[in-house]
């Protein structure tokens, strides 16, 4: 503490130590007081049209069958927001068993929620954001296909947490419809 430079160094050093302690306390508070969304979430599949056409997927040479599953989603994620929540990432995924790979899960829709005011989701007959196809190329007539709603809380400081709240009834995808004029 004998010169100004030494004092600057000491003050800053202690500041980083205290900042680290406060941050770890904040992260700990998220673990000790966890948040759960309310039970009012419902996922329903409405309109499913499958395999409307064949599209070349970027990593494969043969065309793949696409499935398009529209859905209704109603969820209230407002209880997930505490002081340590930076944003909540909500996504809907389709999961189905297969022969080559026993469990498949594909994300078809997601949304980033950054404030509690936007945390209510109410979608009707929502079209998926992303393509749904399988690595074997076959999506026609798959059985036991379910939609699940997941959320992922991303805090300011601390560990990420995931959760699942809402599963639809299993459906069976119909057969293949060729687009008019496609190969």
């Amino acid at each position, binding site marked *: 503490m004998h010169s*100004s430079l030494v004092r600057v160094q000491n003050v800053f050093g202690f500041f980083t130590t205290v900042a680290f302690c406060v941050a770890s306390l904040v992260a700990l508070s998220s673990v000790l007081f966890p948040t759960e969304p309310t039970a009012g979430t419902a996922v329903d599949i409405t309109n499913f049209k499958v395999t409307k056409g064949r599209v070349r997927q970027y990593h494969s040479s043969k065309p793949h069958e696409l499935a398009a599953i529209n859905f209704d989603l109603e969820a209230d994620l407002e209880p997930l927001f505490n002081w340590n929540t930076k944003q909540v990432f909500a996504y809907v995924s389709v999961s189905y068993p297969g022969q080559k790979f026993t469990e498949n899960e594909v994300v078809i829709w997601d949304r980033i929620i950054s404030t509690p005011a936007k945390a209510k989701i109410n979608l009707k007959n929502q079209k998926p954001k992303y393509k749904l196809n399988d690595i074997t190329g076959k999506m026609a007539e798959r059985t036991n296909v379910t939609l699940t709603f997941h959320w992922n809380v991303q805090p300011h400081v601390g560990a990420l947490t995931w959760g699942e709240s809402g599963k639809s009834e299993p459906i069976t995808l119909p057969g293949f419809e060729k687009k008019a004029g496609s190969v």
Partner: protein
Amino acid sequence: DFEGQNLAESLTTTIIAFTGILAFIAGWVLSDLKYTVYVGLSGTTLAFLAVVPPWPMYNRNPLVW
């Protein structure tokens, strides 16, 4: 001015530790992390201002050559 050095060191420790506690409480009660950050940073600035410039209070017992 060893006494001054002691004073400077105890001042920084108490100011910054107290600021850390206050910052955590402020953020917790007001339920928003940005208050924690603001309180923490302003307290640290206060600590810097109190300790780094050579105020005369640190030189009350100068060394006698």
